[in-house]
């Protein structure tokens, strides 16, 4: 907070700079470390959820007071500098006095620069703290939440929340600290002096200083609304350029390059037209507010003339210097208002996230029994229905079922039959709307899956592979292990089992290969196999696999099924491809939220009237 030594020693600055570029061993600065520790000490859930602004002020009251103090000191120093200058202009006769004032002025100038630099540093600190404050809490909150049922929290919205919403709130607070606060303190500290010096004309001049605000506010709003339009134009352009870059060969085969150039140029032109309009308005806005400081001076002279008051030149100029200090900040006020509007919308979204229910809200009290050594052997699904929040239709309708966790079970059904929903319920990703799922342990004990301890124990027992392959933008190894502390040999074993070994043989860096954002560097089949490898790596005793092989070619699919049938674990597999399901122990057919067929696949195949054999035949003809 008071780390002023940094200012005196540029070499230290350089050294720290070189340290900070070292990616591998990131040393956290003392200020930030303190902030992290501070947050770890508190229970994050308690702190947020009420009024964000109040929480913020309460948490950072010491910081904020220091900042206000620093800004006030700056305003007072300015006042002293003005008085010294006034004295120099007035004291024409005594050279000694004049030099005395000059010395005084010199001291004030130097102190001012130091305070100014320190305040700026402090202010950035607050900006960083705000973002840390919110982000760390949002992170913990997100981890505590289960499946998000509300549409407000789609993946896209959450990303916006984390990246831009948090930033906007920080930006608003930064704006207040940088411009709003100095403006206010200027008015409070310098205003009375201006009024004392100039009387009513001084008041009028100060009022006129705010004159550009309505126009600036309107223009600022316009600029703000244009932003989405420009963003859209940029997106369009990026789609077209993306098409170009991805299809160069095709374009050259067709000889369409000049055609595409015309298209791109047309889009660039449209973008530039919109951007020019926006930037033009922005510049008019800035131009007017930057030169507005001349008007209060005109007003001062006009009011003097009208009211018949007369000031000497030195007092007049002293007032101008102080007025200028205030107007310097006034021009940023419209920005603060505009950014408040968006920041408060962001705060609302963040607050709503904090009010969202956690998984722990769904849990029921723990059993009194020690389950640590008990092994789940069966799942009893009892009259389970499920209805997604905000919809009326039951996706699952009154399903009752017993699942033996040592068996290999397969599940088929058309799109929308409720397969994925059932799978999610079985691995406790979601809680049934009606009915119960109970876990039976090898001790003979049977109880509700959603009891706190049962839930934790059972979740450590299963491995789930969702339908949509999930990939983290990092190395292949971390994607399989989900952990930075994995051993390569274990990961490689899982990769071999998931038939990925041949694929990574082509990659220079093997397990260290980056998979890219959402796995762009991998094919659809490879993504699925990475997810499968993850389930296999986890060493969980029961695997729930949601359509794991839809994107792999048929040869790989066949050999993967063989591998799966060789692993010791039982599994539940949901699939669109039927031919490979013969090898499983039991097969369920779902239709419209219900289980319409249940039996051994081979028996079902032989029965010509069974749904499975019908679908199998239809598939073979097609």
């Amino acid at each position, binding site marked *: 907070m008071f780390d002023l030594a940094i200012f005196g020693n540029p070499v230290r600055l350089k050294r720290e700079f070189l340290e900070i570029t070292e990616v591998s061993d990131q040393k956290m600065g003392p200020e930030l470390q303190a902030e992290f520790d501070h947050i770890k000490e508190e229970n994050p859930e308690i702190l947020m959820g009420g009024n964000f602004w109040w929480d913020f002020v309460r948490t950072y009251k010491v910081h904020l007071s220091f900042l206000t103090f620093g800004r006030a000191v700056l305003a007072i120093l300015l006042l002293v500098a003005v008085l010294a200058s006034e004295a120099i202009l007035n004291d024409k006769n005594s050279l000694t006095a004049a030099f005395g004032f000059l010395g005084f002025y010199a001291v004030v100038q130097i102190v001012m620069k130091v305070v100014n630099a320190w305040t700026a540093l402090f202010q950035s600190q607050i900006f960083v703290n705000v973002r840390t404050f919110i982000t760390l809490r949002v992170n913990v909150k997100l981890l505590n939440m289960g499946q998000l049922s509300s549409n407000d929290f789609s993946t896209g919205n959450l990303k916006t929340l984390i*990246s831009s919403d948090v930033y906007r709130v920080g930006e608003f607070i930064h704006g207040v600290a940088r411009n709003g606060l100095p403006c206010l303190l200027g008015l409070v500290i310098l205003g009375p002096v201006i009024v004392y010096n100039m009387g009513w004309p001084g008041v009028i001049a100060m009022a006129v200083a705010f004159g550009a605000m309505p126009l600036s506010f309107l223009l600022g709003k316009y600029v703000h609304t244009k932003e989405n339009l420009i963003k859209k134009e940029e997106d369009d352009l990026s*789609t077209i350029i993306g098409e170009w*870059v991805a*299809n160069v060969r095709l374009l050259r085969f067709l000889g369409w390059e000049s055609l595409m150039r015309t298209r791109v140029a047309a889009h660039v032109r449209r973008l530039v037209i919109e951007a020019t309009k926006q930037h033009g308005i922005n510049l008019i806005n800035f131009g007017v507010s930057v*030169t507005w400081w*001349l008007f209060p001076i*005109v007003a001062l002279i006009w009011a003097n003339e009208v009211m018949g008051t007369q000031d000497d*030149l030195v007092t007049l100029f002293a007032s101008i210097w102080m007025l200028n200090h205030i107007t310097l900040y006034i021009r940023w006020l419209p920005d603060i208002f505009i950014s408040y509007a968006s920041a408060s919308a962001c705060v609302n979204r963040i607050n709503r996230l904090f009010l969202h229910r956690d998984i722990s809200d769904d849990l029921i009290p723990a059993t009194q029994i020690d389950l640590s050594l008990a092994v789940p052997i069966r799942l009893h699904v009892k009259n389970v229905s499920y209805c997604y929040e905000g919809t009326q239709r039951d996706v699952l309708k009154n399903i009752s079922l017993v699942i033996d966790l040592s068996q290999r079970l397969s599940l088929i059904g058309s799109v929308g039959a409720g397969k994925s929903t059932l799978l999610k319920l079985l691995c406790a990703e979601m809680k049934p709307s009606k009915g119960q799922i109970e876990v039976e342990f090898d001790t003979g004990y049977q109880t509700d899956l959603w009891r706190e301890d049962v839930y934790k124990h059972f979740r450590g027992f299963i491995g789930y592979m969702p339908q949509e392959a*999930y990939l983290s933008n990092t190395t292949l190894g971390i994607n399989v292990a*989900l952990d930075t502390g994995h051993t390569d040999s274990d990961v490689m074993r899982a990769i071999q089992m998931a038939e990925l070994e041949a694929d990574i043989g082509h990659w220079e860096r093997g397990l260290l290969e980056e998979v890219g954002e959402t796995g762009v560097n991998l094919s659809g089949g490879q993504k699925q196999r990475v997810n499968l490898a993850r389930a296999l790596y986890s060493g969980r005793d029961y695997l729930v696999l949601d359509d794991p092989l839809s994107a792999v070619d048929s040869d790989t699919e066949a050999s993967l099924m063989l591998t799966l049938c060789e692993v010791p674990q039982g599994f539940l597999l949901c699939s669109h491809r039927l031919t490979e399901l013969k090898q499983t122990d039991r097969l369920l057919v779902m239709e419209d939220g219900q289980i319409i067929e249940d039996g051994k696949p081979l028996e079902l195949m032989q029965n010509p009237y069974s749904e499975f054999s019908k679908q199998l035949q239809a598939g073979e003809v097609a």
Partner: protein
Amino acid sequence: MEYKNFVTAEEVSAEQQNVKTLTRFVSSLTLLRRVMLPTLVVILFAAATPPYFLWLVGEMVDCYGASGCQVVHDVFGWEIVVPATLSTLVMITVFAMFCRVAAWTSFELAGQWSTQSIQSDMMGSMSHVRTTFFDENPSGRLINRLLGDYSMLRLEGVMSVGDTVNGLAEVLCVGLLIMLAHPVAGMLIVPVVLMYVLLQSQLAPMMSHAREIRAVKIGEALHRETDLIEGRTIFSLYGKQQNLLNRIQKAFGASMNIQLFYCRLMSWGMLWMGLISAFYAIVVYGFIVYGLHNELLSITLAAVVITAVFNLNNIFFGLAWDMSFLGETASHARRAFFMIDLPHETTQESAVRDVSACELDRFASRELSGDIVFRGYGMSYRDDTPLILNDLCVTIPAGLKVGIIGRTGAGKSSLMQALFRMVYHQQGDITIGDQSIFDMDVTSLRSQFGVVPQDPYLFMGTIRFNLQGDLHDVSDETLNGVLRTVGLKMDLDAQVLEGGKDYSVGERQLLCLARLVLLNKKFVLMDEPTSSLDRRSDEHIQRLLRNELNDKTVITIAHRLESLDHYDLIIEMANGRLLRQGPPSKIIPLIRNKYLDEQVG
């Protein structure tokens, strides 16, 4: 002494590079160059008017109460009388406002408008760069160059240059004003500015480097946040929340850390630059004290100079701030110019065969006909990798339907790319009816062929656009006619999503065939889709081969043997060379047997 090493030699040479790049950047903004002179005048006016205003205020207060208070200027013998009245002040205020707005808008808007040519040059370069360049560079990076760097240049780039020019004009005007108080004091602004530049040259590279690191770190933090958002249930299922949370906090902490450091750099610069301007202000004050006591200086001028000095810090710091972005602008511009300066795709070829420009023109509009002959041809996808096609000798007779088969990696697709000159030509020659394709202009060579690509991609736009391409004046009847020929019925103005996602692969395939019929080229190249074609498209292809394409040379890269029954000639390739060729009746049974043997074996 360590202070001397504060900036490394590389950083200094980077600065010198930056000056060159920035000069090129500004000179490539054509519209801005045209309006540069009036803009500079307006910029000077915008900087000079407010001090003049203050001076007039002083004069006005000085002669307060006297009627007919006026200021007389002597400009090169011309006497200009300015009445010191309120209305003059209002007029000057409005003028100052106008000049300020005009100075910024004319520079930055003209600049922004002119940047279109930079983008267009980049795209131009993209359309004649080696095709393999796109394989060597990830598409994300290319898009970032073509769009990200461009949009930085468009707005921030032009702004950083414009603001720097405006800032310099303001410093100049302040210097001139102080010179009125005392010439020596005014001249002292020169060493002060030099000290600023010195400090700036220390700070700017670090600032822009820190900004780069910050962008990287923020990117990393966002990746981890994305993990949290998208993969939260997965991480919690496998019990890895804590590891994830630690990684997020580490990444986020790193990004905030660099942000804080960046702010520190800024504060540090703010302090030292502030101290320089404070020192200068004190010196100027000294001259004022001296001037006032020797009655060399009027109080008005003294007050106006003090006003300027009060504002000095802001002007200097604003200038330094704008200048710190020049380095970034230079690096964006450097990347853009790198794209623009990429060599033409035929540069490498000319090393193999030296072709002069006049020879190219001779064949520019000639339509080729005859056999396609590969004469000991060899190519590779990179200059330093082994040959893919190696000493290939094969003749594709005119007017025949030729199927090319071979395993993956045998060089089938490379053959097609070789005909289009999209690869590194390493040996031999390819001729079409005795005309070497390397003696031709690339565009006119490529226009000789009609192509059906393996992946029938449709571009965003209308069906009409995808069908007609760069052909002009094609009537709707003709277009509908070709659509009917391939058995499609579509609205010509229907919109196609990116890639043609809203059409089935079969439909897209047929649309490509329709394009082929419309173009009516002598040579047709077809790359069969690897996945099984739907029956309808297959029938249409066979029918087209019999009717519309009857007299054309058709080269099909085949992935399935069944479709080759109607062909005149089959060419089997292996390891980039011809393995054997002959009529289907002879070749196909041979291959069938070979594959059977392999499977049994």
